[in-house]
């Protein structure tokens, strides 16, 4: 647990970067610090490992005042991932990752084999071990940065905008990987970003800072979307927050209706009879959806339902059923309905087989129910 108690940082030039911050970072969770540029996120983060000392106030790590620790020793127990990875250009990938174990006195062979394990954990092929950082892409460098921070197995991980310099696809990849790693490793992670979407995606708890280093709101992502504390937070959280908030409501128990299905290869006349409101889902042998077919489309097919000519379906929505599967969110359900050419979202079970359909109306009435039962704050 990391506790900020009335922590203030005033730089020598008078800038107040952090203003009497009180905040508790829980163990085994991802806590995100988010806010506009210059609001004191980096300063707050660097006070945790004593790269910056507060002007006043106290920071406790597991109940102990960090001022009592020797900074280099404190830092070896806290992983740090920096914005542009900050890899050592003169060391190979493997030796970059092995740095912290070596510093802590582990022998070279053990440190390197540990480094090789870490490379695998973050999804770097072992063929990259001997490369220098300049020979990696930005995304690969970030992975090395994460591996290096994890090499000594520190309980705490500080990450300062680690994914902000890579393109959106790679960023998404790295974010998924972080969530996967976290589900295995249970670290106490403090993650800094200026991107509210990233904060909501990754954070168990999100601290929104405003310029001047003041904490504006500290809440779960869903509470942040549903109940922003003030105008600053609501404008920072941004547009579509109502829609995005649906992502935090599971669609467990949402009524799934019938959906017309025809099998690929069926005769067009039989398929025509099955259409509901002019549309049907075409499924394969395992009942998995291949796309939609309409009355118009059927009239162009003479022998059988041709899978090449289907209208591609919208997003799928997973439900929990006897065949397994975890219920998606109301956002998934609504998106499935809205993106479907037939205005019916395809619901599938854990095996990917079609179990029914949901309409936007169903989703919205489920939302109304959740509202009235108090699941969604007003």
């Amino acid at each position, binding site marked *: 647990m990391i506790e900020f108690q009335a922590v203030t940082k005033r730089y020598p030039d008078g800038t107040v970067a952090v203003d009497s911050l009180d905040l508790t970072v829980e163990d085994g969770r991802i806590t995100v610090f988010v806010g506009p540029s210059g609001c004191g996120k980096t300063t707050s983060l660097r006070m945790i*490992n004593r*790269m910056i000392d507060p002007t006043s106030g106290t920071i406790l790590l597991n109940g102990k005042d960090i001022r009592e620790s020797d900074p*280099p*020793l*404190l*830092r*070896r127990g806290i992983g*740090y991932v*920096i*914005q*542009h*990875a*900050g*890899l*050592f*250009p*003169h*060391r190979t990938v493997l030796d970059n990752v092995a*740095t*912290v174990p070596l*510093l*802590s006195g582990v022998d070279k062979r053990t440190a390197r084999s540990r480094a090789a394990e870490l490379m695998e954990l973050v999804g770097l092929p072992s*063929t990259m071990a001997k*490369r*220098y950082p*300049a*020979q990696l892409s930005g995304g690969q460098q970030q992975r090395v*940065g994460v591996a*290096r921070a994890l090499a000594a197995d520190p309980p705490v991980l*500080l990450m300062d905008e680690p994914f902000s310099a890579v393109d959106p696809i790679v960023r998404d990849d790295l974010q998924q990987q972080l969530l996967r790693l976290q589900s295995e490793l249970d670290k106490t992670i403090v993650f800094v970003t200026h991107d509210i979407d990233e904060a909501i995606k990754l954070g168990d708890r999100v601290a929104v800072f405003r310029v001047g280093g003041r904490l504006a709101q500290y809440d779960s992502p869903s509470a942040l979307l549903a109940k922003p504390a003030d105008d600053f937070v609501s404008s920072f959280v941004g547009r579509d927050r109502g829609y995005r908030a649906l992502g935090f409501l599971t669609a467990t128990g949402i009524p799934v209706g019938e959906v017309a299905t025809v099998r690929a290869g069926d005769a067009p006349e039989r398929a025509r009879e099955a259409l509901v409101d002019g549309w049907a889902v075409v499924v394969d042998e395992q009942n998995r959806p291949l796309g939609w077919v309409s009355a118009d489309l059927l009239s162009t097919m003479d022998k059988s339902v041709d899978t090449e000519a289907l209208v591609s379906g919208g997003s799928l929505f997973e439900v929990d059923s006897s065949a397994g599967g975890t219920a998606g969110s109301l956002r998934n359900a609504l998106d499935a309905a809205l993106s479907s050419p037939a205005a019916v979202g395809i619901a599938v079970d854990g095996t990917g087989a079609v179990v029914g359909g949901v309409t936007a109306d169903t989703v919205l009435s489920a939302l109304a129910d959740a509202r009235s039962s108090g699941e969604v704050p007003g």
Partner: protein
Amino acid sequence: MNIDWPWPWLERNLDDIAEATGQHLYLALLPVLVGLVISVPLGWAASRWRLARGILVPLAGVLYTIPSLALITLVPLALGTKIIDPLNVQVPLAIYTIALLVRSVSDALRAVPGDVIAAATAIGYRPVRQFLSVELPLAVPVIIAGLRVAVVSAMSLTAVGALVGIGGLGQLITEGFLRNNGVELVVAIVLIVVIALLIDALLLLAGRVITPWTRAGRGVKA
């Protein structure tokens, strides 16, 4: 001045030539080494504190422009050394080396990316170890470049030392003049140039061997 077929003279004087060469190397290289060792902490100070940089960098610039002969004749006055003491040449050479390298070292250290330094600190390096294993290695390519210039100029400046009576290949040049011996003169000059080029090439090679990452460009992704 006559230049005869050089072999007979060379054969007769091989031992003397070898001795003069050894002396020349000692006179020239020791001060460069000492200069290097002194420039690293000075360059570090200059990279770190604005005040130190404000003093050291201009001072180095001024020292470098003092004519070598002037420095060689001033040193005995300042140090109280005898007129034929090797220090009279070696101290100026060390001063030139420092003048040349302080700025290189300081610039090279300042060019180490802030991210890299922050990462090293965050990882838990203590300052001295961080300097020796992160910042200094990254400055090596620039330091080697400065060192190559320092060595080559030290080789020729040492020859000037013969004018104040210290040994080395410069002595063969002055002797050659006095005795009207063209062979001796040419041999000495050729040796100075060839050895300077050789050491320069060695430094270049050593620099490449100890900095493999500098050639790991973006193009060589495999």
